[in-house]
């Protein structure tokens, strides 16, 4: 419920997008956040003594991933942190956010983020945790890019998202591995199977992946660079996400999983190395920042490194210290960010070089900031001091026998010194010194009281915790520690004074050195551009360069290298892979075909195919320059194929092939007119590449040819004992009522195929029609063909001739013959149709014949003449055909049979006798109608282009003539 609430609030706020007020969304947000705090607080009694509160909704029970919430001490403490700081940030933002912006959006995102964060904290299931994990990445993206007009905000947001989402993906995989090692994704199970996990061969992989997730989120070196860039976000966002909560998710996760993962050498080295280097580098970089928020960001990085280092040590006390420091850091850093925001808000700049002596204008804010900075620097009596002391104490102790362990105390002191230096710099350069010159806002003044209230609150918290740790944070910290460490929770003391010991000495050294550094390098700090020594280690630049190179340059060149946009290579691939697909299985298995036995060789058949092959080669040879010749020869090949079908017992195929051949030839001829003139036999010089291409294609073609020949021989000489054909042969007459088995298969046994096939024809006709409606020929095809121009000119030049005489005379006699053939061909079509069920023929051949009858009339008289006399409405034919065929099938339902069940009987007609009648005939009629419609539509649509072009030409000429 606590988790859901912010999301509900978020949605609610999102619906307020149109309001101009910032009060309403802010109040909703504040109310929600406060409720969250109260509800969480109410859970305290149940978790105080190591208790756990659970709540579960089923989501993916098969994989053991459910909406499984689990609150223990640690989660509770963290949730309180999220909630309280959330309330404060909302309050602060209510004043901070300008009214011009889409404020409801801001609060909506903020609440969504809060929910996601709480989700991470409360997840009792690691997968659920990673879900919320990525949600925080997404919401933070939206929050950082809140001022999306600003390129820096966009880039910063994108970088943050890219880095943290990458980490999130890694984390997911790591958690999946972890879950699989443990046998469950349940957090409790995972935490209790530490031995199995650390002993597993995938432990290291899993650890690295999880650490990647945690480190990216918590801005650990070398993934720290996104955080400073995320400072383009509005300050409340920085205060909330980038100091108090989201960046803590990484260390939270480390702490959460440390019982299961820690304690190994790998853990110590990986986590420790990252932690120490982050600690050191973060503080080092922070000293040289000129931007207030930049300084705070690097400081945050450094403190996160501190927490990570603590967690790397793996000792119980270190873990307690880590948890403690998470809380402490959140309090002082959030207040510092808010103070920086106020400074920015009031003065208009965050550049420390321009700021100076602000204590005069912002006395209260300044003092609050000083206290918070002191806490950051680890000054005694403040909460920062306590956790830092614990850190020093732990650093000194020996945990692992390695150089890193030895170096840690020294590095810790150095980093601490740096942090003193930058804290000093923050305070001194901003609040002290001469009054500022040339600020964008000339008169900075204290903000409204309620805007400052969050800072007041947090700084007081720093003080109270720093002075009375045992009464304030003590019990909560204990509950958290117990829930993480369980039985091994150590005895620790939170008192301010432990006596004079090594950690105190280290603190003193760091304090003094820090002051010395600041005093020594003060002027250098304010002059420097970027960070010395590590200037070129600008993570951001490297990241961007890598990203651009990887995701843009390499990707583009790889895309063009691995892919293509041309057709030829693609077809080459397809043929090549098709060849391999057939070749490899046979080759690898050592397929042996039987001996080639010269089966009964028919001389005429051999002769026919000798011709056929020659024609095929001729076609291939002539297709480039002699299109018409190639078409003629292609027609020859088609004819040979047709003879072959007939020769080899397939009269139906022969008939169909023949008709299709004729129609196809006419079709291609109709198209030929629109292709460019090709000047024959221009032997273009062949480059080596072109030669190579040709050679390669030749080899491929030959290989495919040989392969097909081989396979077809192998399969032809192979007898299959029980094919389904036997059933058809035995039942075509008794069950299907036809003697032509092929036709019975087509209209009855497999009529469904035919239904689909005629649909294809219909679709193609529609497509052709649709495409040709927008057809525009190339400019060089626009003119009438040369022959027509010559003939028209001749008619024009001869005094005794009228325009069009030549063509009229030319067609006079042939067209008479073609007209008289019209009824004859129709009769033939009817004949072919009627006999189909018993003998070669059928709806398809009949339909083609019928359309050839129409075609002949178009040929004889031209489009206008033909359409003046016979108006074919192809769409009607097609639709009727499809509906007839489909309707015949549906008709079977009326008799309780499945779709397309045929029925046939002999009708006893007077005078005539018994006549076979089958519903399959009606189906075939549908086929006939559709074929006529489609074929005519295709032919006519193409033929119409000539007329259209005349019209276009006329229009163009009119246009030219007009001006």
């Amino acid at each position, binding site marked *: 419920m606590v988790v859901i609430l912010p999301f509900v609030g978020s949605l609610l706020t999102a619906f307020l997008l149109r309001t101009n007020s910032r009060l309403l969304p802010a109040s909703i947000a504040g109310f929600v956040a406060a409720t969250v705090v109260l509800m969480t607080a109410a859970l305290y009694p149940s978790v105080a003594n190591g208790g756990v509160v659970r709540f579960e909704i089923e989501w993916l029970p098969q994989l053991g991933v459910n909406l499984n919430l689990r609150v223990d001490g640690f989660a509770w403490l963290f949730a309180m942190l999220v909630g309280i700081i959330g309330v404060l940030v909302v309050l602060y933002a209510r004043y901070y956010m300008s009214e011009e912006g889409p404020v409801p959006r801001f609060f909506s995102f903020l609440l969504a983020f809060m929910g996601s964060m709480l989700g991470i904290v409360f997840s009792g299931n690691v997968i659920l945790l990673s879900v919320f994990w990525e949600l925080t990445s997404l919401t933070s993206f939206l929050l950082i890019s809140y001022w999306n007009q600003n390129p820096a905000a966009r880039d910063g947001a994108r970088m943050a998202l890219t880095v943290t989402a990458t980490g999130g993906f890694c984390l997911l995989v790591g958690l999946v591995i972890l879950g699989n090692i443990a046998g469950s994704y349940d957090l409790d199970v995972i935490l209790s199977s530490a031995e199995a996990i650390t002993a597993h061969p995938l432990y290291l992989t899993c650890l690295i992946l999880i650490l990647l997730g945690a480190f990216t989120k918590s801005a650990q070196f070398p993934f720290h660079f996104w955080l400073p860039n995320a400072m383009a976000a509005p300050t409340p966002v920085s205060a909330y996400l980038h100091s108090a909560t989201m960046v803590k998710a990484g260390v939270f996760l480390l702490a959460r999983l440390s019982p299961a993962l820690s304690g190994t050498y790998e853990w110590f080295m990986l986590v420790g190395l990252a932690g120490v280097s982050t600690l050191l580098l973060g503080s080092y970089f922070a000293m040289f920042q000129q931007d207030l928020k930049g300084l705070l960001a690097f400081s945050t990085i450094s403190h996160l490194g501190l927490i990570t280092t603590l967690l790397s040590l793996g000792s119980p006390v270190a873990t307690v210290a880590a948890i403690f420091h998470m809380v402490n850091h959140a309090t002082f850093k959030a207040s510092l960010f808010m103070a920086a925001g106020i400074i920015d808000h009031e003065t208009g700049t965050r550049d420390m070089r321009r700021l100076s002596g602000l204590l005069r204008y912002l006395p209260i804010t300044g003092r609050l900031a000083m206290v918070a900075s002191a806490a950051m620097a680890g000054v005694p009596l403040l909460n920062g001091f306590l956790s830092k002391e614990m850190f020093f104490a732990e650093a000194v102790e020996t945990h692992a026998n390695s150089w890193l362990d030895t170096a840690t105390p020294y590095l810790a002191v150095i980093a601490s010194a740096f942090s003193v230096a930058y804290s000093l710099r923050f305070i001194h350069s901003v609040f002290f010194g001469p009054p500022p010159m040339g600020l964008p806002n000339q008169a900075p003044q204290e903000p409204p009281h309620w805007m400052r209230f969050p800072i007041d609150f947090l700084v007081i918290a720093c003080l109270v915790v720093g002075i009375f740790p045992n009464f304030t944070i003590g019990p909560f910290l204990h509950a958290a520690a117990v829930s993480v460490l369980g039985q091994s929770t150590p005895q620790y003391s939170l008192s301010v004074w432990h006596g004079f010991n090594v950690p105190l000495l280290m603190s003193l050294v760091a304090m003094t050195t820090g002051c010395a550094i600041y005093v020594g390098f003060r002027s250098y700090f304010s002059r420097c551009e970027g960070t010395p020594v590590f200037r070129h280690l600008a993570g951001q630049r490297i990241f961007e360069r890598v990203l651009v190179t990887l995701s843009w340059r390499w990707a583009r060149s790889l895309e063009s290298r691995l892919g293509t946009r041309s057709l030829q290579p693609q077809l080459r691939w397809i043929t090549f892979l098709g060849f391999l697909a057939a070749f490899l299985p046979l080759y690898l298995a050592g397929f042996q075909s039987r001996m080639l036995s010269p089966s009964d060789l028919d001389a005429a058949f051999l002769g026919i195919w000798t011709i056929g092959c020659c024609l095929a080669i001729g076609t291939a040879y002539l297709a480039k320059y002699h299109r018409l010749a190639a078409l003629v020869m292609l027609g020859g090949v088609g004819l040979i194929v047709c003879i*072959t079908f007939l020769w080899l017992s397939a009269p139906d*195929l022969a008939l169909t092939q023949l008709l299709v051949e004729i129609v196809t030839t006419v079709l291609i001829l109709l198209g030929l007119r629109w292709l460019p003139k090709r000047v024959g036999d221009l032997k273009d010089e062949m480059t080596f590449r072109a030669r190579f291409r040709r050679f390669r*294609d030749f080899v491929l073609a030959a290989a495919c040819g040989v392969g097909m020949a081989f396979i077809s021989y192998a399969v032809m000489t192979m007898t299959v004992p029980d094919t389904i054909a036997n059933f058809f042969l035995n039942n075509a*007459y008794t069950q299907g009522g036809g003697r032509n088995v092929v036709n019975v298969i087509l209209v009855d046994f497999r009529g469904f195929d035919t239904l689909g096939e005629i649909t294809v024809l219909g679709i193609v006709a529609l497509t052709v029609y649709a*495409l040709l409606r927008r057809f525009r020929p*190339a400019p060089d095809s626009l003119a009438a063909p040369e022959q027509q121009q010559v003939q028209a000119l001749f008619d024009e030049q001869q005094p005794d001739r009228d325009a069009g005489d030549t063509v009229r005379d030319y067609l006079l006699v042939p067209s008479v013959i073609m007209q008289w053939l019209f009824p004859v061909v129709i009769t033939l079509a009817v004949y072919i149709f009627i006999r189909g069920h018993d003998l070669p023929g059928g709806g398809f051949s009949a339909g083609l014949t019928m359309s050839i009858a129409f075609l002949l009339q178009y040929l004889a008289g031209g489009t206008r003449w033909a359409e003046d006399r016979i108006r074919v409405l192809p769409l009607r034919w097609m639709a009727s055909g499809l509906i007839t065929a489909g309707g015949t099938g549906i008709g079977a339902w009326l008799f309780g049979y499945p779709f397309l069940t045929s029925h046939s009987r002999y009708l006893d007609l007077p005078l005539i006798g018994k006549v076979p009648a089958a519903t399959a005939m009606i189906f075939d009629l549908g086929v006939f109608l559709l074929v006529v419609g489609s074929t005519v539509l295709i032919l006519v649509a193409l033929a119409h282009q000539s007329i259209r072009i005349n019209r276009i030409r006329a229009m163009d000429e009119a246009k030219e003539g007009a001006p």
Partner: protein
Amino acid sequence: MELVLSAAIGFMTACGVWLLLRPRTYQVIVGLSLLSYAVNLFIFGVGGVKSDEPPLLTEGASVALLADPVPQALVLTAIVIGFATTALFLVVLLASRGLTGSDHVDGRSDPR
């Protein structure tokens, strides 16, 4: 028969593939036609080839010797679909030629 037919299929496949890989749209459409001849014959052949045994039933005759009607039915479907797609490809290549002014398969206008 089988030998001649498979050689023929091989020949037509080779010519068809060769044309299919050429750069001119017209060559491609002719190549596709040749290939579909080859494939149709191939489908036709997989049932085994028999001369003079068309699958037409006659009273009292044995059906055992008749040619396999299934591949024939499949080829019929394939012929129809092949016809349709050839028509379509033709129109598309015309449209492409009209819009790009070139009959290159990629619409390029350079001669090679």
